[in-house]
């Protein structure tokens, strides 16, 4: 029972982190109709900038400033890059963001090298908050949960209760109409892109110390974020939340409970073959849930795309 609680918390942390990344991505998608392949790259930049700032000014300054820098960069990318490529169609847009992801990874390597950076949890938070059945829960994880929830509530509030939020929602669906009403839609787009990437940056700032700050970090997380928004439904913020939490919990539980395929197969009545090493199915028999934990989201995504192509909470026009 206690193990379940620990996994719930761990899964929550992963899920909320994933949500911060996927929220921005799904918003950007519903705005431009294009999947920003470089989204995870902004996450990486957030971590690296925060690291660099924290050396001089401390972790908290990094948390404050780094996302702003990332957001500004993101807005710049939209204004000078994406907007230009937009005229060529969807496929070039996708390819552009893909190339951008590549370039950012190279630039990061160029500036900081290939090794992991010593970006650490701030001293204030570096203690054990409490323990459940011998498993210690670091205070930092609680901090991560709180920040993520705070951001989600903030986002929800801005989008649904403020005037700016209304205009943004309208512009996301009917840009031409909103423009005809006198709003500066290109500015809105730039802003949404900037905020979306800033969100990714925040995720980077707080995840960097825990998941490691290294040039491959964007790549590692990149495709999972796409999977998340596809499962949740492209363009749906609630879908992104549900999918993120789902994936967070599925992967955490799969990793912590060592369920072996052989047990399942035996359970439904198929006996283990005599000479396992010679059998060509040996891998199937020896696979355990931690091994496939990371690919479960992909399996889920493919299933969703087959049976429910608009995602769990997506709408038809996505």
């Amino acid at each position: 029972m206690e193990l379940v609680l620990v996994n719930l918390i761990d899964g929550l942390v992963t899920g909320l982190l994933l949500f911060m990344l996927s929220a921005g991505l799904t918003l950007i998608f519903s705005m431009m109709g294009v999947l920003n392949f470089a989204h995870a790259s902004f996450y990486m930049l957030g971590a690296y900038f925060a690291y660099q700032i924290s050396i001089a000014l401390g972790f908290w300054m990094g948390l404050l400033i780094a996302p702003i820098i990332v957001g500004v960069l993101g807005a710049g990318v939209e204004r000078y890059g994406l907007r230009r490529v937009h005229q060529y169609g969807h496929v070039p847009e996708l390819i552009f963001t893909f190339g951008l992801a590549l370039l950012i990874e190279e630039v990061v390597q160029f500036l900081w090298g290939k090794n992991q950076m010593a970006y650490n949890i701030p001293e204030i938070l570096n203690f054990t908050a409490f323990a459940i059945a011998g498993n210690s829960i670091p205070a930092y994880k609680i901090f991560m949960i709180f920040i993520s929830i705070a951001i989600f509530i903030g986002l929800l509030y801005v989008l649904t209760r403020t005037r700016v939020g209304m205009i943004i929602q309208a512009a996301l669906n009917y840009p031409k109409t909103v423009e005809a009403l006198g709003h500066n839609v290109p500015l809105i787009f730039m802003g949404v892109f900037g905020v979306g990437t800033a969100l990714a940056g925040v995720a980077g700032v707080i995840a960097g110390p825990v998941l490691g700050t290294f040039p491959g970090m964007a790549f590692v997380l990149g495709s999972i974020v796409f999977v998340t928004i596809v499962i949740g439904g492209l363009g749906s913020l609630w879908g992104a939340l549900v999918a993120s939490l789902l994936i967070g919990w599925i992967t955490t539980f799969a990793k912590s409970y060592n369920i072996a395929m052989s047990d399942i197969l035996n359970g439904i009545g198929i006996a283990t073959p005599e000479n396992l090493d010679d059998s060509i199915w040996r891998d199937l028999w020896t696979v355990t849930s931690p091994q496939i934990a990371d690919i479960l989201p992909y399996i889920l995504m493919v299933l969703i795309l087959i049976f429910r192509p608009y995602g769990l909470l997506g709408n038809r026009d996505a």
Partner: protein
Amino acid sequence: MSDKAKTNASPMRAGSMSLTLTPWIVAALLLMVLPFIFNNNSSITIMNQMWITVIFALAYNMLLGQGGMLSFGHAVYMGMGGFLCMHVMNYVEDFGLALPLPLLPLFGGLFGMGCAMLIGAISTSGAGTRFAMISLGIGELVAACSVIIVAFFGGEEGISGDRTYGLPFFGIEFLKQIEVYYLISFWLMLSAALMYLFSRTPVGRMANAVRDNPERAQFLGYSSRWVRFYSFMASGFFCGIAGGLFAINYEILTEENLNTASSGIILLVTFLGGVGFFFGPIIGAIAFTLLQTVLSLETELWAFYAGALFLATVMYFPGGLAGLIMMHVPSYRFGNANKLFVPYIKTLIPGLITVLGSAALVEMIFHYRHGSVGDNEMTLFWITFDSHALVPWIVVSVITGVAFYITKTTAPALKEAWGDANTPPTSGGAS
């Protein structure tokens, strides 16, 4: 514009019907002759890699350029074809069957096609984002499975084999690189020819139609979904052939051949070359392989340059290198190509110097930041200097700055010359 000019308006575009043999004959001759010009082993290895990449890129373009389908997980089909071929090689070796090596890629092709049929059955109902996402998901899935399913994929070490296993094929044992080169060249010509002809068949033409307007194509009696499916199958076949040749050439296949990074690279290669023309991917594959092999010897930052080049391509010339070349066809046909010669020299040469200068600065920054302590010497363009001294920095910055300035000032003249060269000559007796 006169009638003659109108009817001759279409150059060797993806839509042109002229089946001229000349380019093919020239290509075949070049393939045969090149190893004699570049006859050291490393050049031949590079060329082998180039030709394999060309087949893969052409197969990829069957989907991207011809079909309008963007796939992010295409390395799967090449990898699967390759892995199967490795297994076949080992199997034949163990059981002493008489399978001549040249036929091996065929197995790869068929297996690649089989995989494409399976996956295409679910992915081809749409062409846009859904298709791209499924391809990404499947790509990641297969790459991840390849580490788990050790029986087929060999786990961390991959699967290796020996291509000299069987009976000699007309006396050739394929021990030497040059023999493999000719085998690859043969398959290259065959595959390229088949892929080109495919685009001229009914299903190939409808693939173009479905790309441009899937709804309209339905009202021509064609199911857009089936047309995409067949294109996908055909693409998978040729990817598998490329995989088989890879297996023969390198004698080892690993998870790397299947993963998203490889899929990303082929996308880059194809797009760089130009998706709108049949020969685009060929140029892209050649250019990229050269970048990858030759440039990587000169600098650690070659991937950075590749990324920057790719981005520049998307932003400024999305037609790719082929598009750039074909842009000059109208002026050539009007007989005005010579008008561009001088402006090009005036603008492109300073432009080139600007790029090289910027690259030099980048290299210097990199060396300054990451060079080992005490190792201050670096070599650029055959000049050795101290990267920590001020003088080289000033020199390079000034050269770059001046070149940039010249480029900017001569650019308008080039623009004017371009417009001039592309104006059709006023014909006295227009119809």
